[in-house]
Structures are given as C-alpha cells and as structure tokens.
C-alpha cells in the first residue's frame, strides 16, 4: 500500500499568497486583547498608552466609543453604555427573560429572527453588532500597530460556547470586515501559548475563569501536538458573578441605610463597576473601602478579604465541581496532571488559586499573564494557519448533539468530547402511515429531555412518498467542522429526497439580516459578499492553473507542439483574469482551461492505467 507520509518540515505549506498577516483576538467578556505572531514571536498589541487590555465596553452617543473611554462613560451616562455583551452572544430574546433582573440591560423588541436587541443610547442593537464594534476597535489597533491592513483573524471562544454563540461570534467578525480563519477554543489557545512558548509537556489542565464563562479542559501536550481530551464548563459562571455578588451586597447595604432612590439599571452598573474595583483591590490587599455615589446620594462600603472570600466561595466551589466531573469523564486523577494553566483575570483572586492548588496538590501555572495568554495562543495559531506549521491542534465537541425523537426524548448523534472534525449519521423512520413530512429538531446538551437541552434549529424534510409507518428510511447526518460549527442534513433513502441546512440558530441572524447590517455598516460599504466570491473564484482558478502547469511539467511529452500551445494560451488567459476584479471572467477562463485539457487528461490516465495493468509499479506516482 502506498501512503505518502511527509517528513516533518516537508509538509506542503499553504500558500502565503498576497493576503498578508493575520492576528489573534481574544474577544473577552470583560476585556479583549489582540496579538500578532511573526516567526514564532508574539507581540501583544497595545494602545498609545501602552495598555494591552481593551475593556469590552461600548458607549453609543453621537459616535461609538470602545474600551477605556466607554468604561469611563459607564459612570456618567450608564444608559448609553453596554458591557459584558459576550454573555448574550447567541441568545434569543426568550433566553433573556431568565436573565432579566440579573443583568443590567434594557431590552428592545427582538430582531426579525428573534435575536435579542438591546436599547442603548436611543439605538436598538443586537449582541452581534455590539461585538462587531469591539472587533473593529481591535482591528484598528492592529492596523495602527502593524502599519498594514488586517482583514483576517483567529478568534477565540470559550470551549463551552454552544453552536449559536459560535455562529454569532463568526457573524460579528464578518460584520467588522474580518475573515475568521478559525474559531479556537480559549483553553486550547492558552495551552498553545504555554506549549510553544514555555515548552511544557504531559497532561495539563486549563482552568479558565473568564468574565462570563467558566471552562475546564484537559489536554495532552507533546512536541507539536495539542490534543484536547475532555472539556467541561458553565456558560453562566464567570468573574462577572463575583462582581455581581459584591455589588448586590453593596446595594443591600445602601437600601438598609435608606440612602438614595430604588435600584435601577444606572445604579446597578455603577455598583458593578465599584465591585470590580473591590475585587481587584482585594487580590492584592486585605481590606477595601469605597463610595457608591449616585445623583448626590453617596454610600460608604467596606470589605475585608476574609468576608469577600466567604461571599465568593460558593462560586469557586461550583467551578471545582466541574473540574472533578471533567477529570472523572476522562478517567484521570488530579495527581496524574503535570500542571494547570490559569486563564482569565479573575484567576488572580487568591481564593481561586488556593482552592485550586489544594484540589490539584500543586500550585497552578501563571508565568504568562492570564489576561493575555489566550490572545498569545490565538496569534500563534493565526501564524500557523497562514505561514504554515507542523503544530497540530486536535479539539473536541464540548456538548453532545442530537435530535428530538418520540416522546420529547433526545437521541444523541454526536457525544460530547468527540474529536473534531466529525461526521455521524443515524437512521430514523416515520411513525404514521402515509406520513409525508418529518420535522428535524436539532438539540445540544447532555440531558435526556428536549426541554432540558438547547434548541439549535428546526427544519422540515417533506415530500416523503406515501408508505406504511416504519417503512421510510430517513438518514440524518451531523457534521461538525474544525471551528466546532454544525451542519445537519436529512435524506429519505428510498427516494433520495434531500434537505440540508447549515444550522443557523432558531433566533440567529439570517442571510438577509446579515446583508442589511453589512450595508448599514459604513466601514464595509463595499459589498462583502462580492469580495468574498471573487476571492474564492481566484483561489479555485489559481489551483486549476497550478494543476495544469504541474501536469505539463510531468507529462508534457504526451502533447504535440500545437496541442501544448493551445493549452498554454488557455492558461495565459486564466492568468490574465487573476489581476482583475471580474468574477465571471475568472470562472469562465478557468472552465475553458479545464475543458481544453480533457484530452491531455485522458492520455495521462490511459498511460497510468496501462502501466498498472502491465504490473509496473505506480510508485513513480508516489512522492
């Protein structure tokens, strides 16, 4: 058997092309970071004042302000400022009812597809649009720092992000004019940063307490291989919750002292900002004191570290319960771990480190700044994807995927912690005589019942020919790509009737809304879709051209001079269209070239087959 195994370093590299460098972006709940890797050296990009962290806060006034300026506005005009938008990514208006009262947002009427919209500073905005504003600010910072245009990025997401949240993140990037080369899970990016930068090897855990989500992942690190073994988390547990608990206590103290007006969104935002200060302060000191001042009604608050730790201990315990579960899933004892990497600013809280050290039996690693480590990993992966690399990153699905069956039970098609990319199929049948349509309801989650899992999409396979119950054979296939995004297809096997959907979350943006948003956004006046299609046509044409040239070099003697001349002319015609912007011309020229080389291809195949029949080894064809 012939298997072409390349020696390390000889792996065919992707074309670097003329597209330039790509950046790595950690789009965080509280802060975002952008970094770039060149020749394996990572630079975290800073603003003019040397700050790496861009607060994930956007202020909407006459214009849009992102970052520190927006955070400053949080105290003056909180009604026009939005923070922690990542918590709402991929959530429908329905989901948010559960969060109402917990989060200091004001909701407007939902968008057409059911996606939640926030009322901020007189505008109605979806979480995707708000995240796009943060991404634009990061891309702008990168352009200034690097001095050239940036239109491609690796963006990180929590490992525990569901399909809806991943899709929303990709849409936000597209809206900001960035092509997403890959969505990488945050813990994997952190491991990449440690593995490549610090050379750690063995079995590692990544404890990632982000602003709004918690992930715990187990990875095996070896030279050049980063293999995720298991991951678990809680999409509603984060550093923000620490702020919430502290803020709630301050607001309760204020109420008991009878100070000021009842709690509204403005006061809640101010209390949260103050609570964050208290958390940061208590990570370094034993006592904290501050004043919450709203409309001239100040209240004084104090907190000791001991009291703070009692407040937040239940949250830390919740995270450790997930750690135990993930280790049990993988059948690994804490003692088998070579180390634990910390991610997220909230892992600076001493209680988190102490409890984790006690659980693991050793202190966690924090050589790389926990606020920057994810962006560092994302930048390394961005370079690997564009410039080529032998590093291998093998990730898994964080949540099980399935479809609804009789009685509201979820039939799992892909289990959690399955390595991706993956494709699985299962057959179902009709349960009524003459049933002509079947609804496919796609779900994500670990529980058995439909109403306990997250509904991702619903679509109908119709046109099933009349048959008795149980006779139809409907094959439902799930495919999860390397970004963790799901595609579902259904096919009636007796007739070949097919239905295929890319799972757009039930309440996500549809293509029309996306197109409208792209038109509305001034930065992307040029039609994004046209540019995308032209680029794709050129990539395909270039591949055809390379294929023909390689064939001419290898088997050119099968052609006479006239035949060769014709093919070369067709190739030159393709080449000529590549510098233009006419997609139709590119595609037509490439097609003519393919058609014009048919006879050449037949002769090449004939010779190959004759050689094989003659018993000659076709090793010549091996590399």
């Amino acid at each position: 058997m012939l298997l072409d195994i390349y020696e390390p370093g000889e792996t065919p590299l992707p074309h670097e092309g003329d597209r330039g460098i790509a950046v790595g972006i950690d789009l965080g709940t509280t802060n975002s970071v952008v970094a770039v890797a060149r020749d394996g050296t990572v630079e975290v990009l800073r603003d003019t004042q040397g700050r790496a962290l861009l607060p994930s806060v956007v202020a909407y006034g006459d214009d849009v302000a992102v970052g520190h300026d927006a955070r400053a506005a949080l105290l003056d005009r909180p009604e026009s400022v939005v923070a922690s938008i990542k918590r709402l990514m991929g959530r429908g208006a329905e989901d948010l009812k559960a969060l109402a009262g917990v989060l200091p947002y004001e909701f407007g009427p939902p968008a057409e597809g059911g996606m939640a919209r926030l009322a901020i500073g007189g505008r109605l905005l979806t979480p995707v649009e708000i995240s796009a504003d943060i991404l634009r600010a990061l891309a702008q910072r990168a352009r200034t720092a690097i001095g050239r245009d940036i239109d491609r990025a690796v963006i990180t997401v929590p490992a525990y992000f569901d399909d809806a949240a991943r899709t929303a993140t990709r849409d936000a990037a597209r809206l900001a004019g960035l092509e997403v080369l890959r969505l990488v899970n945050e813990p994997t990016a952190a491991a990449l940063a440690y593995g490549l930068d610090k050379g750690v090897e063995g079995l590692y855990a990544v404890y990632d307490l982000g602003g709004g989500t918690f992930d715990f992942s187990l990875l095996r690190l070896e030279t050049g291989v980063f293999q995720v073994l298991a991951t678990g988390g809680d999409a509603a547990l984060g550093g923000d919750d620490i702020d919430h608990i502290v803020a709630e206590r301050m607001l309760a103290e204020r109420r008991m002292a009878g100070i000021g007006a009842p709690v509204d969104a403005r006061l809640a935002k101010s209390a949260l900002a103050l609570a964050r200060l208290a958390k940061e302060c208590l990570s370094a000191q034993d006592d904290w004191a501050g004043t919450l001042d709203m409309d001239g009604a100040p209240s004084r608050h104090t907190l000791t570290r001991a009291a703070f730790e009692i407040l937040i201990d239940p949250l830390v315990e919740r995270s450790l319960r997930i750690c135990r579960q993930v280790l049990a899933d993988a059948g690994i004892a804490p003692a088998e771990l070579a180390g634990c990497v910390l991610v997220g600013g909230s892992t600076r809280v001493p209680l988190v480190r102490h409890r984790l050290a006690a659980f693991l039996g050793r202190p966690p690693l924090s050589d790389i700044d926990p606020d920057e480590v994810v962006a560092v990993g994302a930048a390394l992966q961005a370079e690997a994807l564009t410039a080529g690399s032998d590093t291998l990153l093998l990730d898994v699905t964080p949540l099980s995927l399935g479809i609804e069956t009789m009685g509201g039970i979820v039939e799992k098609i892909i289990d959690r912690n399955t390595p991706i990319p993956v494709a699985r199929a299962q057959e179902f049948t009709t349960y009524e005589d003459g049933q002509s349509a079947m609804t496919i309801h796609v779900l994500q989650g670990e529980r058995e019942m439909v109403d306990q899992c997250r509904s991702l999409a619903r679509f109908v396979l119709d046109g099933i020919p009349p048959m008795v119950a149980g006779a139809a054979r409907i094959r439902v296939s799930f495919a999860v790509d390397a970004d963790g995004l799901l595609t579902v297809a259904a096919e009636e096997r007796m007739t070949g009737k097919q239905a295929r959907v890319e799972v757009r979350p039930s309440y996500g943006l549809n293509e029309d809304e996306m197109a409208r948003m792209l038109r509305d956004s001034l930065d992307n006046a040029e039609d994004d879709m046209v540019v995308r299609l032209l680029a794709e046509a050129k990539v395909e044409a270039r591949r055809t051209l390379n294929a023909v040239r390689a064939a001419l070099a290898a088997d050119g003697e099968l052609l006479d001079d006239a035949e060769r001349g014709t093919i070369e002319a067709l190739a030159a015609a393709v080449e000529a269209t590549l510098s233009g912007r006419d997609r139709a011309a590119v595609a037509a020229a490439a097609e003519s070239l393919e058609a014009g080389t048919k006879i050449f291809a037949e002769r090449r195949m004939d010779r190959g087959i004759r050689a094989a029949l003659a018993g000659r080894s076709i090793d010549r064809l091996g590399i």
Partner: protein
Amino acid sequence: MNDTADISAAVTRAPGAPVACWSCAGPVAPEALFCATCRVVQPPRAIDHFARLGVPRGFAVDTRALEARYFALQRQLHPDRFATRGPREKAISQSQAVSLNDAYEALKAPLGRAAYLLALAGQGIDDERTIRDPDLLVEQMERRETLDEARDAAGVETCIGAAVADAMSIEAELAAAFGADDLVAARRATLRLRYLQKLIDEARARHARLLGEG
C-alpha cells in the same frame, strides 16, 4: 453502519489501479493522500480503519505506534493545513480528517477495536442491546448491586478498582481469542467488556459526584 459500506466498496475496487486526480485529472495511486503531479490533497478512499492508519489488521496493536501514525496523518490532512486554500480543498481536507478521527476513535481502545474486528467479520455487537448470556447477566447484576451499596467515595473507588482489574483480564482473553481466530469467544468477551466499561463510566461519574458533595 458506515463501516460495512466502506468495506464492501474496498473489496470491489481493483487493487492498484490508479484513480483520476480531482484537480489535475491525471492518474493517482489509489491510496495516495496527495497527487504526485499537482500535489493537491485527495479525498479519503473507501478502506478499513486499519488500512487508513497503516497498521496490520488485528487485536494486538501497538497503541503508541497507532497514535504516532494518527498524529503524522493529521499533521498533513487536518483542515488547519488548508486554512488559506480554496473551498474544495478545505472540504476534502475536512473529510480526510473526519475519516482519520473515525478510524482512530474506533481502534485506539481495546473495546472499540474488538467491536470493529467483529463487525469486519460480520459478527457486530451493535444490535445486541439486551444480555442473552445468563452468566453475564448474573455477573452484571452482582456488580451493580455492589456499586449501589457503596455509600461513600472510597466504596465506589473499590468497585472501580475491581472492575478495571477484570477489564484488563478480559483484554487478555480477547487477545488470545482473536489470536486463535475464535470469534465465538471473542464475541462473548467483547460483550462482557462493553457492560464492564459502561459500569466503570457510571461508577466514575458517581465517584465525582460523591467527592463534590463531600
């Protein structure tokens, strides 16, 4: 169900005959991952999991070598290598990586490997949903009882330890059965191992819960 389709296709294909490269249309060796002429990635062929990972078919597999092979192949075929390529190459790379993951997941552990070998021999255990073997039934009921009676983490740990030790001895039985081509014994041992594995998984989950409560 994919596996059986793959296998029959593999049998009907004439061995050694070149296939046409989808990109340059010239001849490519049937198992080649890349076209020797234009160097473009080729779609996965219909071959069994052992052939895909380039290891001899059998229960006794050097898992270190298997893993090294899997990594080496993913290094060439994973979609990360094709991030800047066109949509067709990306799609082919994805199906290659999917096939590799399927193959590696099926073969990496003894239970999966045994079940796959039985499926190749037309003796698959997928349809075997209930325990028909009375000895196995009694054994499973006793184990479950012991696990249910364990009140604390230490008790569950003892159950896990005993089950893992038994699993290892079944693996030895499997090696002997497959080595002697005794599919009846292999099938029986595989079914036992499957129930044992399920019990171990449940016990581990319960162990984690008990630690969390404690």
